[in-house]
């Protein structure tokens, strides 16, 4: 037990659906700073995958500061650890853009989650967050997305889209969009939905010769593809997709 830091509990808003019990011994102060200078573009593809070094909890905490007209594009697959969590705090200066494409996958009792706080601190900045969650067993996928638009940040355009796909009965997803808007000329779109595999589509595919495993794989691929639409590097897109589908193949 680490005595110097107090661990969060589920009473903390940002840990509401998390697996806080998996956190023991994790350094919660380890934030990675990413500063993108005015006009520059930063892109990263992050993955939390099964491997020899994977612990009970895998946290990635990023603090992103975007200068005027700067861009940050993050794409991520969370497919490992009892608690796999990517947290991003973003501060956007004038005309900056933040893009997040995230996928969570998992079964058993695992929790995989994205927690973001996007601060539109100046006018004319845009953000787009797309998270797709595919879960089975008693797995949980979460997206807690805060968007803050300060008083002067006119012409903000912020979008958030979350969709959950539950492959088995005990799985669940939670979406918590939180918008705090203090400017008046603001576009803020957010949508969240949860569903199951389209059985008629699967039957149609079977009638053309696809096995149940293959039809499920194709439908999951189509579902999570949304998260990588904005990733305009085909090789990286395929790599991220392969990591996600490998997880599915391994466990179902």
């Amino acid at each position, binding site marked *: 037990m680490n005595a110097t830091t107090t661990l969060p509990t589920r009473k903390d808003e940002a840990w509401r659906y998390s697996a806080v019990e998996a956190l023991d011994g994790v350094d919660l102060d380890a934030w990675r700073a990413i500063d993108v200078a005015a006009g520059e573009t930063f892109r990263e593809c992050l993955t939390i995958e099964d491997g020899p070094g994977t612990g009970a909890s895998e946290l990635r905490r990023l603090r992103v500061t975007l200068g005027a007209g700067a861009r940050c594009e993050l794409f991520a697959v969370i497919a490992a650890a009892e608690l796999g969590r990517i947290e991003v705090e973003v501060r956007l200066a004038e005309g900056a853009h933040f893009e997040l494409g995230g996928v969570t996958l998992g079964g058993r009792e695992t929790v995989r989650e994205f927690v973001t706080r996007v601060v539109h601190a100046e006018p004319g900045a845009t953000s787009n967050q797309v998270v797709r969650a595919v879960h089975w067993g008693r797995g949980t996928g979460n997206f807690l997305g805060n968007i803050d638009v300060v008083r002067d940040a006119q012409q903000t355009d912020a979008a958030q889209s979350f969709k959950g796909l539950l492959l088995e009965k005990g799985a669940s997803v939670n979406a918590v969009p939180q918008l705090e808007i203090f400017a008046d000329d603001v576009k803020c779109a957010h949508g969240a939905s949860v569903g199951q595999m*389209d*059985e*008629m*589509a699967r*039957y*149609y*595919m*079977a*009638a*053309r*010769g*696809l*096995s*149940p495993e*293959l039809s499920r794989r*194709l*439908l999951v*691929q*189509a*579902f999570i*593809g*949304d998260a990588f639409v904005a990733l305009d590097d085909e090789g990286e897109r395929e790599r991220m997709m392969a990591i996600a589908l490998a997880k599915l193949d391994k466990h179902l």
Partner: protein
Amino acid sequence: MLKIENLHAEIDGTQILNGLTLEVGAGEVHAIMGPNGAGKSTLAYVLGGRPGYEVTAGSVTFKGQDLLELEPHERAAAGMFLGFQYPVEIPGVSNVQFLREALNSQRKARGEEPLTGGEFLKLAKDKAGLLKLDMDMLKRHVNVGFSGGEKKRAEMVQMGILDPVLAVLDETDSGLDIDALRVVGEGINAIMRAPDKGVLLITHYQRLLDYVKPDYVHVLSKGRIVKTGDADLAKRLEAEGYEAVAA
């Protein structure tokens, strides 16, 4: 090649097929007509193994094997093609990807080599041409945003690519304009008119049968075949209606 005997089937505990008997020989085209709700689509789905369609009595043999024992995808690999009355949309999956996976799955199940991307595209282009469907349509997601007629034409392109031995086509003609009807009719002939193939053509209208000449016409009513005749039966039905001809 297809032998249906005394078939009884139910959906959600409701009996729909009541002792249906029908045999399709190699090289034959059989048309099935019948009033709304008679059980035509149910027959198609039972043959295609759709979940929820439960066979309670009777048997179906296809090329000598028990069809009802096979999973839906195994039936496809065995050479059966089901043309849907309402083709299903699959957002996010392109026709090209879908059909290539489908064809190669079938080939694998039959112990054949998969087609390469290039070989597949050539085949797809060929069949799209046959049905006068723009190749660009095949790059789009399966049936998404297709008009009613385009869906039916795309189904026939699928059939051309998969090259089945038995086609069960459920109202493939509905939703087609006059020119498309001719194209689809000729497409069915080109793909399925062969000594070793068979067709079960479910339709409400005589018109398609002008292009695809049936060897037999059956009237399905209340879950069973109540009358069988030749191509002239369809003409009489069109002129006089089910009540007068098949009651």
